[in-house]
């Protein structure tokens, strides 16, 4: 009964989204006020319906209703309750339902927090979001219905993939989706602006907080995924350039470019077309990511779909969205007036350079990700593009971006002089060079890459501190200023972490039996025993390790090898001690003869800074969003004037 209610709610949601996707847009075009006013209530009802559907599915998981196909495939009576809720989005169908639920959540948020925006604009934005919802709901209903019944009902479910039975994984998909889907709002604002022909500072100001919010969520989502891969997969890496990781990284790169481009559009009125293109691009990348992950063309822990109809459906959706929005862009963009002019050396031009570099970086990652698919589709054989490709291309492209980002906030709009910039940047420059020489040498051997990495991190961090100190002299800066510097500081922390791990981590695969000791990175790892430990739905073999540094405090690590009852698949659970400046990491490989095990031991300096940096970035986004000027109730007579002018046009 409950699953049928859920199913019914999804169908109703489709009907509502059809209304939301058509009438308000038509109303905005023909000036029918009653149609325009439909947008807000429709968005609210849509969210309510999808929340009901999602609750119904969660309930089915909670009560172990194995007569629902999706529940039977992704849960098990022994699965702990917390993971049962995580299992709701542990598979293809449920994760799509989550996707649409979040989309409707963003839609209703736009409806609620846009009281100061004129109704026509709101109707257009909500209408575009409604159209996207229609596409995804059709996808769910026709190819991936989570409420399909299984008759006769299964005795027990076939369980959630043990890899996904982890708290990190409960929050990773929702965060990531919040980001993916959030770019739909930036996209909808851009399309609405194109439709109305009103690409102005007011539009940029409206899009900015939404874009920043989506970007912050995406940053956290990617970081959570990376952290999960680090401690759960037992390989000790934090980024593998796996196509699925890239799929989430592509919208992040374009989203980052979009954030900065929007800033220029708001402040100076320049880059309008470019900003619109980026908004379209960022959302297209989100859809492409969904396609890559969900269509089954890629193989990984995320790829569930083997039904080719699904891939085709998302591909068609992608083509429709990208094609129609680019067509609209080509048709309306020439009408967009150019913004303020700027000199060759100005904050605008430097921002543009950074923007172009980010887009190029995104294109190179996209190429590496799609190239094997392309070659395969052309029947030219099967190939794989490995991480060295991405490192060789991505790192050099990003270095100038990192170099620029420290100095750009100092550059003046319209025109700036290099001499002036150089005068103000000499302290960070000198400190960066000193640190580049010192730090890697202290850690071990100096290499060009570690030197550059440290130099860039210090360059960004020090110039940030100096800029903050200077700004404080003229009173307390607004939240967006703090947000920007917090985000940039996050990048510095991240770059430092990546450089340290990349340059100075130590790794050893060894055969160990109780009593054996191995030294890695100055730490002594002693295996003192191996024992069996029961778990709620698995049994585990646990290694006991004592870790000491030069006779200092003893820390215990308990890596496990788990066997889940519901599958024959073993799982590695690493034993990690995380510190501020390093992680020590032990994971069990496989049993050898007697009590001996193959053991992997890592020393990872500053690895925590990688995710810490991401948290800083997301916090920076949060701060920037809270800036007062986004909440000012029609402070702007100018804004009103722009609206009136637009309505008249």
């Amino acid at each position, binding site marked *: 009964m409950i699953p049928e209610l859920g199913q019914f709610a999804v169908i109703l949601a489709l009907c509502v989204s059809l209304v939301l996707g058509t009438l308000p847009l038509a109303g905005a075009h023909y000036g029918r006020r009653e149609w325009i006013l439909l947008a807000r209530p429709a968005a609210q009802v849509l969210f309510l319906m999808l929340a009901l559907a999602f609750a119904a599915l969660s309930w089915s998981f909670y009560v172990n209703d194995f007569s629902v196909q999706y529940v039977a495939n992704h849960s098990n009576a022994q699965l702990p309750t917390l993971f049962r809720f995580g299992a709701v989005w542990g598979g293809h169908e449920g994760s799509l339902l989550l996707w649409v639920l979040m989309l409707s959540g963003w839609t209703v948020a736009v409806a609620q927090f846009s009281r100061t925006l004129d109704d026509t604009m709101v109707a257009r934005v909500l209408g575009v979001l409604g159209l996207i919802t229609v596409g995804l709901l059709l996808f769910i209903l026709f190819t991936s219905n989570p409420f399909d019944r299984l008759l006769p009902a299964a005795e027990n479910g076939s369980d959630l*993939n043990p890899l996904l039975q982890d708290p990190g994984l409960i929050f990773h998909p929702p965060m990531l989706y919040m980001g993916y889907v959030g770019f739909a709002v930036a996209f909808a604002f851009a399309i609405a602006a194109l439709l109305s022909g009103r690409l102005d500072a007011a539009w940029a100001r409206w899009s900015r907080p939404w874009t920043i919010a989506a970007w912050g969520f995406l940053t956290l989502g990617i970081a959570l995924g990376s952290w999960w891969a680090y401690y759960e997969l037992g390989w000790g890496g934090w980024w593998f350039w796996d196509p699925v990781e890239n799929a989430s990284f592509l919208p992040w790169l374009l989203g980052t470019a979009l954030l900065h481009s929007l800033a220029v559009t708001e402040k100076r009125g320049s880059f309008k077309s470019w900003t619109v293109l980026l908004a379209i691009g960022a959302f297209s990348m989100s859809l492409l990511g969904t396609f890559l992950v969900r269509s089954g063309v890629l*193989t990984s822990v995320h790829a569930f779909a083997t039904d080719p109809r699904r891939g085709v459906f998302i591909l068609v959706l992608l083509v429709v969205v990208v094609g129609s929005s680019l067509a609209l862009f080509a048709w309306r963009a020439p009408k967009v007036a150019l913004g303020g002019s700027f000199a*060759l050396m100005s904050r605008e031009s430097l921002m543009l350079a950074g923007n172009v570099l980010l887009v190029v970086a995104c294109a*190179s990652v996209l190429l*590496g990700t799609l190239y094997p698919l392309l070659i395969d589709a052309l029947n030219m054989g099967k190939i794989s593009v*490995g991480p060295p490709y991405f490192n*060789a*291309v991505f790192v050099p492209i990003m270095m100038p971006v990192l170099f620029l980002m420290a100095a750009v906030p100092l550059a003046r709009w319209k025109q700036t002089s290099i001499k002036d910039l150089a005068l103000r940047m000499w302290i960070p420059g000198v400190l960066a060079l000193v640190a580049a020489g010192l730090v890697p040498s202290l850690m071990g051997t100096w290499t060009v890459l570690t030197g550059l990495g440290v130099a860039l991190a210090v360059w960004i961090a020090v110039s940030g501190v100096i800029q903050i100190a200077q700004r404080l002299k003229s009173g307390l800066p607004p939240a967006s200023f703090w947000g920007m510097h917090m985000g940039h500081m996050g990048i510095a922390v991240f770059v430092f972490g990546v450089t340290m791990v990349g340059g100075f981590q130590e790794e050893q695969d060894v055969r160990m039996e109780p009593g054996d000791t191995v030294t890695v990175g100055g730490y002594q790892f002693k295996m003192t025993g191996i024992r069996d430990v029961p778990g709620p739905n698995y049994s585990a073999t646990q290694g006991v390790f004592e870790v000491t540094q030069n006779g200092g405090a003893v820390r215990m690590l308990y890596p496990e090898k788990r066997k889940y009852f519901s599958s024959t*698949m073993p799982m590695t659970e690493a034993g990690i001690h995380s510190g501020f400046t390093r992680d020590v990491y032990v994971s069990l490989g496989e049993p050898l003869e007697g009590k001996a095990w*193959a053991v992997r031991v890592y020393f990872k300096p500053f690895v925590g800074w990688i995710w810490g940096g991401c948290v800083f970035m997301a916090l920076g986004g949060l701060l920037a969003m809270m800036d007062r000027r986004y909440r000012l109730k029609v402070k702007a007579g100018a804004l009103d004037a722009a609206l009136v002018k637009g309505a008249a046009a």
Partner: protein
Amino acid sequence: MKRWKKRAAIIGGGLSAVGIAAALVLNALNSNIALYVTPSDVMAGKAPQSKAFRIGGLVKEGSLRRDNLTVHFMMTDLAHDIPVAYTGILPDLFKEGKGAVVQVKQMAAGEYIATEVLAKHDENYMPPEAKDALDKAQKNKGGASL
């Protein structure tokens, strides 16, 4: 004139950025692509000679042999077997009779030395490259018997 210069500088800068990126991309692609081959391909001498490549297939039942941290096994597409050795920790799902993909570059003592061994995250899931290898071998056999 000034405007023209500015435009030229922006366009030139953009083009050179794209050009450098393209050069980086092509260079990196060229040296970092690994071709997938099946065990039958390797037997037929179709594997690249001087570059790393990947073999997809099944780990042959009963072929797994451990020598401390080094593992010896056969990759098979049920038509031909290729001996492979790997030193290090294997992924959790690496098992006899299951699909796997190994990246190899050189041979030593009649075995291909694997630098990377991949098995998939899901026990019921076959890497498409492994499946592809089996399908191809199956087809060839079918063709011969017809």
